[in-house]
């Protein structure tokens, strides 16, 4: 039997939707002993695959796990594994589609309907996890900003920290996340707030900071690669607020440099 066929037969047997005939085919190619049947042997690998992915999920989404409880989270993690399949050879990016996948599950399962905020909470946890492992940034000094603006005016394109992730939600998920982390709230939930905007970034540790919608939109504009001049022309209000906040963004490590618009690709 050729190698590819034997691998296809075995791997098919791991899938939850394997047919009886397909499973029997896998059993037929496996050695058996009296107390350890081919079916049991396949199950060892099935459990190991599920367990490996579950351990990553519990590490990346610890608050989702706390809220749902072990059994429910384990079921979801298993369904997620076999319905989406891992597409990378390492597990460091495993779980990237979990928030979007949760969106679909909330609509499908009555038992999850009360957890309508869970996909956004998973997005927050994913952003936190991502921020921890991103590329380190070069240090940019606030005092260099004056020289740069003198040389290039507003033709500068701000460069954001690799560790910076934008997060927004209609629900106060950051407060929920904090309460489950037994951490001191850094902001008070304001029930009248229509929407919540946050920046996730890494200094020594990963931080999450609530920002105004204007600051949030300014950073979104920075991500598009527009120069300050172009932003000002098209998005006057956001750019006005953003420029006012720029020094504190540099100090926070959110803005880590600039590119002169006429010298694209050249870091200044």
């Amino acid at each position, binding site marked *: *039997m*050729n*190698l*590819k066929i*034997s*691998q*296809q037969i*075995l*791997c098919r047997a*791991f899938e939850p939707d394997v047919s009886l005939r397909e499973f029997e085919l896998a059993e*037929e*190619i*496996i*050695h058996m*002993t009296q*107390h*350890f049947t*081919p079916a*049991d*042997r*396949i199950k*060892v*690998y099935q459990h*190991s*695959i599920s367990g*490996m*992915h579950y351990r990553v999920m519990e590490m990346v989404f610890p608050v989702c796990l706390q809220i749902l409880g072990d059994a429910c989270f384990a079921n979801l993690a298993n369904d997620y594994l076999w319905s989406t*399949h*891992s*597409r*990378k*050879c*390492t*597990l*460091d990016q*495993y779980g990237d589609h979990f928030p979007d996948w949760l969106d679909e599950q909330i609509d499908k399962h009555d038992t999850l309907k009360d957890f309508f905020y869970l996909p956004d909470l998973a997005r927050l946890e994913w952003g936190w996890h991502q921020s*921890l*492992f*991103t*590329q*380190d940034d070069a240090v940019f000094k606030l005092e260099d900003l004056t020289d740069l603006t003198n040389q290039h005016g507003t033709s500068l394109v701000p460069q954001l920290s*690799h560790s910076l992730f934008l997060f927004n939600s209609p629900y106060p998920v950051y407060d929920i996340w904090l309460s489950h982390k037994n951490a001191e709230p850094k902001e008070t939930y304001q029930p009248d707030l229509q929407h919540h905007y946050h920046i996730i970034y*890494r200094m*020594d*540790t990963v931080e999450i900071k609530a920002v105004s919608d204007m600051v949030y939109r300014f950073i979104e504009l920075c991500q598009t690669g527009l120069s300050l001049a172009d932003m000002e022309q098209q998005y006057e209000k956001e750019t006005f607020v953003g420029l006012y906040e720029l020094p504190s963004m540099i100090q926070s490590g959110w803005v880590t440099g600039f590119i002169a618009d006429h010298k694209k690709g050249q870091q200044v």
Partner: protein
Amino acid sequence: MADSTLSNMAGPISGTGVGLRHCHIQDVLFNNPDIPWFEILTDNHLEPGGPVKHALQTIRQDYVFSFHCVGMSLGGVDPLEINYLKQIKQLGEELDPIFVSDHLSFSTLNGQHYNELLPLPYTEDSLKHICDRILQVQDILNRQILIENPSSYLSYQHSTLDEWDFMNELAKQADCHVLLDVNNIYVSACNHGFDSNKYLSNIDFSRVKEIHLGGYEDRGHYLLDAHNHPISDEVWELFKTTIGQAPEIPCLIEWDNDIPALEVLQQQASIAEDIRQNTMQEALLESA
């Protein structure tokens, strides 16, 4: 062919090292424990930056590292993941490991990653297939690699070779080295009903450059290579036989689940070193 300067020299590391896991990094950083070398799970450290990476770079100043990988899928039929191999090479340039190893297994099929060490049929076809891929990997990494014997829970009806013969041939044909996991031999022997000592007496020790030791979990009708227990008495016995064959080979203690304090791993390493010293002394006495 691959540059084998580093991986041919067992000299730069000796004694029994420990698998370095996240939970022990701070301990190692601040206490500089008396451990001769560390092995890192390469796949957990391919991220471009962050505090864990900084810590590894600091630790590397005082300790030698080896790289242990799980994602090459050397026995797989999907194309090799070149980006993954480039990441390993890049990390290798940063941390300069003495060895790079992966397993005799496959983990990918049709683009789907099982992230598990799945067993291969031991046939001439699969031997040729995996040797070709190891040669490619060694060319990309520009070094010889070590292949570890896996613990396995199933074997194929159409296998025509014993695992030890497959390992020996693979090392010879791909001009690579062997990472001999003594616990895996014991676990597989119990799960498949072969004799562990027969495995050891048939393996070509001239190709073995590293030994792994870990703890299994007894699941009643089979043993699971869970790396969550101290090394069992049976595996210590096998280790004595192993070290009798090749007393200078560096060893490593692996513990990946329910990980205890670093001191517990150091105690296991001390036992391994005591066995090594006793075995060497006994051999000296016998020869005298």
